[in-house]
């Protein structure tokens, strides 16, 4: 409840919490649809300064493991980032460690910008495969918004992939596969398996002030030349030009609810002042952890809130080659993927499927830091064998929603003035089988490509980018937090607009779907159609 010591602002129509992918897409779409609405976004972090990113620094590798690590916990351990306003996450009970960015752009700042859509089957796995749940709408309901979101991000790629319904031609040609990708493509071709160059939200031609990618490598520490799309470069400039306000360094601590209706937000601004912002509608887009944390801290109740956390379990298989490959050159999330095993085939011993993605290598220091043994002459022999001679295949599986995988609150308060947060996640036996199957297929491909040695990483903890499912959509308030329009069953003028909404996760990266979904929800708020 607002107190007398607060700074009080005049009422607005829509307050958006979080300037990441969901919040930015929602803001831009809503402002375009309803220009008279007073819309303000509150972001806990700050704008990125592209003139001072690690890629321009001599110690860029060290920074990528410290203040610019992908894990907020690692950034905090290194003394904090200053732009990403991180909060600690107790992930000791989770097989995967949450990764994110807490500034303008959200995790699009340090994502790899691999930009696939979900498959149509991903929206109806209960109907098709008897597991999980169906989404409250279909791929084809979302398809126009996928197209709009593609247009906003500017996708490089190649149309015609038969793993998907036909997509519009990609605005830019695909990123170069490089030696590594070309070798993998030939192996997939020899095996008769599906492969396709990735859709990437990365410029391959210069557009305006955003240059074409120059293959520098460390996408996950921010893109220095702006080739990689992030919402601080895409949605936000347009949203602000449309009249949306964006207040940075503002930590929203509570959605105030009176009589089942949200009346506004209480937040701490960059000067540490307690502020009160009344609003008719509150939109929450703080990712699958931050959103659940804020809703719980605000006393918004639902049996499903915080539960059904999905991460996309991930494993890696690396092949070592005699000939020189690219190493840490080029966008890390590229070059190509295979959806040969994406759809369910029950003869494999599990339902649902896997995504295989041939990726670039990590920086030298990261490669050196993951060796086993970690030091000594043998470690250096392995590194010399591996560096610029390895090909990594990411195996990503679909994890089904499970109640025990969840986000919970701690009793202790954190420095940001909110209760601490804990993540509990255990890899299921079904997902384990899927990963094992995927690793075997990845090894098969790598052998076909000529790898002379294979290293398997059966579980890759620091892949927890995809924070999904903790405020899921549905029609039943007993099993879902929101309806199909993202409105909370318990407090209908609170709308969730991020990956928390996913009833199920598919087996590929969710960014494209999060953006499309946020656009759809903004239309729903004003009763518009695509």
């Amino acid at each position: 409840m607002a107190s007398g010591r607060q700074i009080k602002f005049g009422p607005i129509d829509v307050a958006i919490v979080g300037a990441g992918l969901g919040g930015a897409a929602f803001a831009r779409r809503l402002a375009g649809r309803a220009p008279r609405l007073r819309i303000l976004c509150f972001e806990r972090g700050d704008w990125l300064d592209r003139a001072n990113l690690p890629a321009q620094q001599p110690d860029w590798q060290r920074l990528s493991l410290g203040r610019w690590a992908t894990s907020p916990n690692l950034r905090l351990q290194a003394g904090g980032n200053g732009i990403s306003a991180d909060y600690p996450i107790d992930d000791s009970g989770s097989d995967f460690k949450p990764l994110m960015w807490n500034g303008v752009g959200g995790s699009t700042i340090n994502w790899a910008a691999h930009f696939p859509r979900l498959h149509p089957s991903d929206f109806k796995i209960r109907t098709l495969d008897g597991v999980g749940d169906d989404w409250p709408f279909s791929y084809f309901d979302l398809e126009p918004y996928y197209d709009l979101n593609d247009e906003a991000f500017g996708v490089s790629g190649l149309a015609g992939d038969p793993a998907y319904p036909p997509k519009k031609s990609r605005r830019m040609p695909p990123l170069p596969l490089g030696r590594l990708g070309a070798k993998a493509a030939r192996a997939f071709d020899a095996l008769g398996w599906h492969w396709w160059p990735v859709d990437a939200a990365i410029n391959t031609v210069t557009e305006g002030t955003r240059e074409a990618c120059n293959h520098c490598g460390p996408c996950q520490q921010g893109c220095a030349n702006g080739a990689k799309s992030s919402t601080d470069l895409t949605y936000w400039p347009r949203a602000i030009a449309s009249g949306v306000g964006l207040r940075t360094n503002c930590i929203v601590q509570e959605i105030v609810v009176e009589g089942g209706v949200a009346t506004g937000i209480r937040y701490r601004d960059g000067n540490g002042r307690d502020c009160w912002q009344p609003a008719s509608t509150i939109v929450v887009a703080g990712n699958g952890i931050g959103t659940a944390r804020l809703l719980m801290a605000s006393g918004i109740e639902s049996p499903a809130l915080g539960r059904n956390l999905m991460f996309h379990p991930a494993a890696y298989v690396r092949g070592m080659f005699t000939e020189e490959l690219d190493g840490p050159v080029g966008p890390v999330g590229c070059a190509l993927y295979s959806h040969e095993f994406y759809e369910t085939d029950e003869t494999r011993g599990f339902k649902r499927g896997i995504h295989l993605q041939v990726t670039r290598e990590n920086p030298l220091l990261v490669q050196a830091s993951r060796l086993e043994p970690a030091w000594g002459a043998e470690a250096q022999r392995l590194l010399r064998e591996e560096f610029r001679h390895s090909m990594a295949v990411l195996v990503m599986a679909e994890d089904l929603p499970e109640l025990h995988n969840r986000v919970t609150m701690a009793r202790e308060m954190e420095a940001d003035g909110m209760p601490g947060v804990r993540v509990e996640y255990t890899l299921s036996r079904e997902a384990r089988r899927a990963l094992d199957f995927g690793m075997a297929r990845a090894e098969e491909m790598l052998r076909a490509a000529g790898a002379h040695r294979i290293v398997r990483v059966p579980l890759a903890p620091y892949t927890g980018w995809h924070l999904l499912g903790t405020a899921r959509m549905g029609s039943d308030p007993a099993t879902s937090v929101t309806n199909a329009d993202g409105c909370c069953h318990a407090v209908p003028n609170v709308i969730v607009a991020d990956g928390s909404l996913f009833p199920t996760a598919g087996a590929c990266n969710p960014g494209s779907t999060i953006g499309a979904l946020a656009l759809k929800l903004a239309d729903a708020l004003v009763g518009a159609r695509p």
Partner: protein
Amino acid sequence: MTRTMLLAILDTMLPGDEGEPPLPPASEAGLDLTRLERLAEPVITALGENDGFLAAAAADRVAKLRIVELNAPVAFKALLAEALAGYYEAPPVLAALGWRVAPPQPHGHDVAPNDEALFRTLEKVKSRGQLWRA
């Protein structure tokens, strides 16, 4: 004694090799030793026998450090992480691995353009028809 011990420990962790060109041992890679010295103190304490370590053959030094790695894992890990970071940022090491010293930007890296012949093999993928379910 601390610096002598530090260099001996670093060379045990990162002895270099005789490749072409050779990787230098850590003591010759130009690492900033100031921070490493502080991190090395608990490791040296855990070793407990400076003269013995310095007099030991390379294989015995490895064995002694393995024991410290087991008994003082936090201190050992912190020292190793800093040693790895300094070493694999060091210009002589980058050069020995055929990697450039300059940071990734502003110059980026060259990657060969896509091979059109390879992309024509995607026609085989397309010819399989619809692979998605609805």
